[in-house]
């Protein structure tokens, strides 16, 4: 049977070179036949990512995929963001999916802020994928219907494994990828890791409180990011000092899903 269209080889007396199954006789070798697949290698992941995306939309969840190298300050920034949201948007539900090879240290830091977090340990894996996020979201959703959060919209931060290479290829079903780069890392990083910065909607330039102590050329970094991604937005901030946090919260506000049309999930 042809794996492309499912047609059968009904007439045994005819040589059928129809879609897919052509019989080839190669002298000296046993009979081989050709099968056309033309399948995306990331097809299955992307199918589940689409499903995640629909699921998020149905629940009014705005999901953000935070990507960066290890040590850029993602988790500290997340904790500072949560603290700021708790003050400025107390009715907004926030949850986090943490990705790391090992340990649940990051998820514990998040939970200490009062926000639910699921830790995904990828083991030898170097990136989160859509099936992992699907399962993690199921857990979050099953356990955390909090009546204190009366805004029907919510924010889901997915902190990916610290890695500027691999996560670029894996759609998780997020609304946007946010790349975090700290000023201790070097302004040429966007050129060195073009796939990641090309895939990001927003670049957060973190640890700006350290600018007086490092040789980091901010305009050059922004120019580099715009080279690989002409449309990328940039916000400079410091999770430590609070500089730029208002702009980041504003961006989040603008990014959040409009209220779901069906209000059947609203906790009024």
């Amino acid at each position, binding site marked *: 049977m042809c794996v492309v269209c499912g047609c059968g080889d009904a007439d045994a007396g005819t040589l059928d070179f129809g879609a897919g199954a052509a019989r080839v006789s190669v002298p000296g070798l046993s009979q081989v036949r050709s*099968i056309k697949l033309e399948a995306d*290698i990331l097809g299955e992941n992307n199918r589940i990512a689409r499903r995640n995306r629909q699921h998020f939309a149905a629940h009014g969840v705005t999901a953000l995929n935070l990507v960066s190298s290890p040590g850029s300050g993602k988790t500290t920034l997340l904790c500072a963001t949560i603290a700021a949201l708790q003050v400025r948007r107390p009715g907004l539900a926030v949850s986090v999916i943490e990705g790391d090879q090992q340990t649940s240290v990051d998820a514990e830091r998040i939970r200490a802020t009062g926000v639910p977090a699921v830790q995904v340990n990828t083991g030898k894996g170097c990136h989160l*994928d859509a099936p992992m996020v699907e399962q993690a979201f199921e857990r979050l959703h099953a356990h955390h219907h909090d009546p204190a959060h009366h805004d029907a919209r919510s924010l889901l931060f997915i902190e990916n494994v610290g890695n500027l*290479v691999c996560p670029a290829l894996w759609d998780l079903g997020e609304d946007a990828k946010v790349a975090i780069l700290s000023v201790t890392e070097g302004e040429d990083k966007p050129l060195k890791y073009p796939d990641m910065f090309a895939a990001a909607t927003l670049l957060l330039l973190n640890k700006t409180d350290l600018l007086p102590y490092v040789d980091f050329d901010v305009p050059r970094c922004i120019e580099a990011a715009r080279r*690989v991604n*002409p449309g990328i937005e940039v916000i400079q901030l410091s999770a430590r000092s609070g500089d730029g946090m208002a702009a980041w919260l504003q961006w989040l506000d603008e990014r959040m899903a409009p209220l779901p049309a069906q209000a059947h999930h609203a906790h009024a």
Partner: protein
Amino acid sequence: MHEASLAGSVLQLVEDAARRDGFRRVAMLRLEAGQLSGVEPRALRFALEALAPGTCLQGATVEIDEPAGQAWCMACAATVAIAQRGDACPRCGGWQLEPTGGIELRVIDLLVHDD
């Protein structure tokens, strides 16, 4: 490193086809990893070879086509050739580029043994 994960997905696709179409061994596997797909063909080949023993891919020849990178240059209003992301437009030297070709990552076809 992510080529190992991709190799796993390739094997899954091939095993699904094996179940559907009733073959046991693959003689030749042809893949497509475009220049702008973010995948290193040698690493992918290595990962597949490491994964193959004990599976239907054992002993299979792996061929990887590398379609050339192409991008739409917004300044030139034309399609141009680029070998990697971050390359400037060969015509105008600018970077207003949107990749349009060489971004594929696919299993194209297989040659299989029925025995």
